[in-house]
């Protein structure tokens, strides 16, 4: 990797890391979040020590890709978000529109208000997208 590309990757990583930190700070029900490339490489994350962010990045990538395929086959248009309702919590998956398409995965416990967490995650996605775009265009 040459120095310019590495600098851009580092900046992209720090932008994502800042937004993840803010998301977890503002929404106490959220206990983990990951930003990854759509092909499963971790960009930035905050998850519990007993979790593998690398593995979760790859799995999230597959899940989102399957959701896109299901939406396409099911004729329901473009996939926007994915919510997994589990016995002890929820998982939110969504893409982050930017020059290099990324994905955001958010983990929260089942005490969380679905709407509030969803709203927070979407806000994080939007602001991250704007900051990444500004970075890419030199704004």
């Amino acid at each position: 990797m040459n120095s310019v590309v590495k600098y851009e990757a580092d900046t992209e990583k720090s932008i994502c890391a800042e937004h993840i930190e803010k998301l977890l700070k503002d929404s106490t029900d959220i206990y983990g979040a990951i930003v990854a490339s759509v092909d499963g490489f971790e960009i930035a994350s905050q998850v519990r020590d007993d979790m593998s962010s690398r593995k979760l990045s790859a799995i999230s990538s597959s899940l989102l890709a399957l959701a896109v395929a299901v939406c396409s086959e099911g004729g329901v248009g473009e996939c926007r978000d994915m919510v997994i309702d589990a016995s002890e919590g929820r998982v939110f998956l969504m893409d982050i529109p930017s020059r290099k398409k990324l994905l955001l995965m958010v983990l929260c416990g089942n005490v969380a208000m679905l709407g509030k967490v969803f709203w927070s995650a979407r806000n994080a996605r939007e602001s991250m997208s704007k900051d990444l775009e500004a970075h890419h265009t030199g704004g």
Partner: protein
Amino acid sequence: MAKEYKLIFTGTMGVGKTTAISVISEFVPVRTEVASSEKLSDDKTTTTAAMDYGEVMLPGGDVLRLYGTPGQSRFDFMWKILSAGALGVVLLVDNRRPDPVADFRDYLQAFRDIVEGSKAVVGICRQDSHPLPDVEAFCVAADEMGLDVPIIAVDVRSRDDVLLLVDILFHEIEAAECDSSSETVVMNTTSMRFA
């Protein structure tokens, strides 16, 4: 009553799993292609993140369900998910890569449960431009692992070549079923001939 058979296409990233399924599937396969962060080649910028899915109708109404795996080992959880209930595996090896025999060993090991039941076939890709290692080298490697698996050179862009792989696989599956002396042979080879 028509039966359905699940087959897995696996191999390294960019070897041609999606292409192989595309050339024999009755419909445009379901794909989960995403932009690749890694440099693959000038004409390939995407990679499979979850799976490909296609189908082949056999004479008699039986259906082959074809599942393509992602190539990268970070997606190995998908290999396990897709392998569940699979009858056989088609392993594609890319001879352009730095160590194709090592790739071959890695994938045979990953799919060992299926391969050990003699339910596998291996296609060596791009031997026309990269003749080495030759088929014999792969046979030796399989031998060293104690595995007996048919290995042929193929061009996955060719429908005939991919159908040949599937045909060989069915012979393997049928032979394995006979060897295991199950009460009924699950397939009739003659019904597996492709139109």
